[in-house]
């Protein structure tokens, strides 16, 4: 069934499943993109391609939103332009490196986009911009993650085109990072004769090492490449459950176990590590026999959680993020545990201790050691 939409006052007839971006391109309306590539499935992470859709309270990502009959779309209103600039400005803020001025290594899309949108230098600051040492371990791909803007293009290209699943996203929030295996330097033979991720990287986060001397024919010859497991397969949904079981058995998930799980579920190692580092109750470092989690969210904060944190420190001699030398306790801070009617509160393993006072801490912890 033909679908009629209006983009910037132009009437367009499209088909079901066509995205706003595709419909716009059909009539020569240019919508800038960054995380999107036509041959990769959309992720919608960068928010550069946002447009206004009449009746929608929020901006809409053009690369992943299908057109619907009667849609009225505006691609260049002042509001849309401001949102695009802001998204780009935010990406530039935490991004270290001379990418915007240095186009020597390769053409930087961030740089081009900044000129296209007439951007000045970013107004924002962050506490600590992302900085990672340049990684030269791999003879085929040089990684400079300080320049990475987390567009996911390398992850998708590796998964969907090369079908190697080398990359994943690890950690979460601002700490998110493109990882290989258990966040190890990229040093995989599987990358030999590939380099697709380099072609898809919009910045110079991924580049060819200086010694790279291959031809395009070689690069595209994937026939001999070792195939990595795909992410589709049986029991994939058991991953979190398996990690949790391992966490409670061994008190952490080791790289060895991550490797085993990846193999048994037929998914990439980085994928398993990415899941393991996303959830706060999973740890990739050994925790103590008992884990204390003091709630620091607002209801507990108002009831002097800080004092409880100090009392725990005094009682077991370690600060948040640490484990006692005898391996008895690990001490962590957590967000809301839903015991706000008993604030300040903490979890010890899975037990709730509420209405805490400094003198009750030692008593509460006694039963665990």
């Amino acid at each position: 069934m033909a679908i009629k939409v209006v983009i910037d006052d132009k009437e367009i007839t499209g088909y079901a499943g066509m995205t706003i971006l595709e419909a716009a391109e059909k009539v020569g309306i240019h919508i800038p993109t960054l995380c999107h590539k036509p041959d990769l499935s959309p992720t919608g992470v960068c928010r550069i391609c946002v447009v206004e859709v009449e009746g929608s309270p929020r901006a809409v990502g053009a690369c992943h939103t299908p057109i619907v009959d009667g849609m009225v779309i505006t691609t260049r209103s002042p509001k849309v332009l401001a949102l695009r600039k802001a998204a780009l400005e935010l990406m530039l803020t935490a991004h270290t490196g001379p990418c915007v001025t240095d186009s020597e290594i390769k053409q930087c899309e961030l740089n081009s986009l900044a000129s296209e949108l007439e951007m000045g230098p970013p107004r924002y600051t962050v506490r600590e911009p992302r900085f990672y040492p340049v990684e030269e371990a791999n003879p085929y791909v040089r990684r400079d993650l300080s320049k990475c803007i987390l567009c996911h293009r390398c992850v998708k290209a590796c998964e969907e085109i090369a079908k190697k699943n080398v990359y994943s996203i690890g950690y979460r929030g601002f700490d998110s990072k493109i990882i290989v295996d258990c966040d190890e330097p990229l040093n995989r033979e599987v990358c030999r004769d590939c380099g697709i991720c380099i072609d898809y990287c919009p910045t110079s986060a991924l580049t060819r090492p200086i010694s790279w001397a291959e031809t395009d024919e070689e690069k595209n010859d994937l026939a001999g490449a070792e195939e990595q497991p795909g992410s589709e397969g049986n029991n994939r949904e058991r991953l979190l459950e398996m990690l949790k079981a391992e966490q409670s058995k061994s008190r952490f998930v080791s790289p060895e176990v991550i490797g085993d799980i990846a193999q048994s579920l037929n998914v990439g190692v980085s994928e398993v590590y990415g899941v393991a580092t996303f959830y706060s109750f999973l740890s990739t470092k050994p925790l103590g026999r008992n884990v204390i989690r003091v709630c620091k969210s607002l209801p507990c904060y108002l009831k002097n959680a800080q004092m409880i944190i100090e009392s725990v420190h005094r009682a077991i001699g370690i600060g948040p993020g640490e484990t006692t030398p005898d391996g008895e306790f690990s001490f962590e801070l957590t967000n809301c545990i839903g015991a706000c009617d008993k604030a300040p509160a903490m979890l010890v393993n899975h037990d709730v201790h509420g209405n805490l006072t400094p003198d009750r801490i030692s008593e509460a912890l006694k039963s665990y050691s």
Partner: protein
Amino acid sequence: MPEKNVVLKHCGIVDPHNLTTYLARDGFEAFEKVKATMTGQEVIEEIKASGLRGRGGAGFPCGLKWELARKSGNGQKHVICNADEGEVGTFKDRYILENDPFTLIEGIAIASYAVGAQQAYIYLREEYHYLFDLLKDAVSQVAEKGILGLPKIDVVEGAGAYICGEESALMESIEGKRGQARYRPPFPTDRGLFGRPTIINNVETLMNIPQIIHNGSDWFSAIGTDGSKGTKVFSVSGDVKRPGVYELVLGSELRELVEDLAMAEDIQAVQVGGAAGRLIPESMLDTPLSYENVLGSGAVMALDQTRDIIDVVRQTIQFFAEESCGKCVPCREGTEVMVEILGRMVKGDGVVEDIKTLEDLSEVMMLSSLCGLGQSAPVAVLDSLEHFGNEYQIRIEQSVFLRGVRAVRG
């Protein structure tokens, strides 16, 4: 008093460990009634007529959600009960699960019948692991009772991530993945868990279902206001003498809840709806608690006159920065930038431009973040700028002074 027990009707009366006590009251009669006398579509019509809206925070009309899933093809469908109660200051679902898991299971059974699902899930946050066995036991007691037409119910557990209370991230998590939000469309009712049409309902929403079937949609829609039918269970914390769980008729005034029931004194502001919720100044305590005004997850946190509002806002944004899944730019980077600004502000190092930056960033995050987390993260910032703008002005003036002192001292 505006208190009324609909959702909490059986709490404290039935034994959560013993199904017989639930059956001895009207337990599973609503489910039997539905199976004997109603088609799935008729159940949906009844829920639509009741005006029940989602109790998790977003307030989507429940019957409409079910209908979208029911009409989405004839294949396998899923029902998910969202028991990932992570919104700061919310503990009403914990109270419900602790006291009355059976009504919830009956609600899930009716929902599954209505949409045509054979598989249901209860997604429980790991912070509530101490309820895991209780829930599993309740599910098996019901299964062993031999009640016909029940869906298979699996209790699955998260592993510590606020974002997994967001429906698309929750489905990712059940699929064993990182709890990252998905873009929409496709909506879960169309392509949800494992790509199947799925409804995700909050614990409290599902608790209302057996009562609506029992008493009829007319009875239910007579409670509350025009746009907010029924009751709401609130979790009250902060500067109050009687923190706890209260069930009120929708449309009751915020003042009745925090001052009369929870006995707060000397209020400066109340945060309604948790970190993602509104910051209501004392002068607006007469605001009705309803979808038309202010509601959210049911978290109500009172702040007395001694509290530093900017520090409260900083804490709130810090929470979002820690809990952002990190997928989209406005949320991942925006929360971090806001933490930097508010952190400086609290320490006495704010600049005049910070206000404009906070306003601009808030708009960007609300308009272009992928999911509800990034979209609602700036609410506390904007509300505080609106109602407590003076606090920011004072803080910036102090900052100017302090910088002068530092410059003189070298």
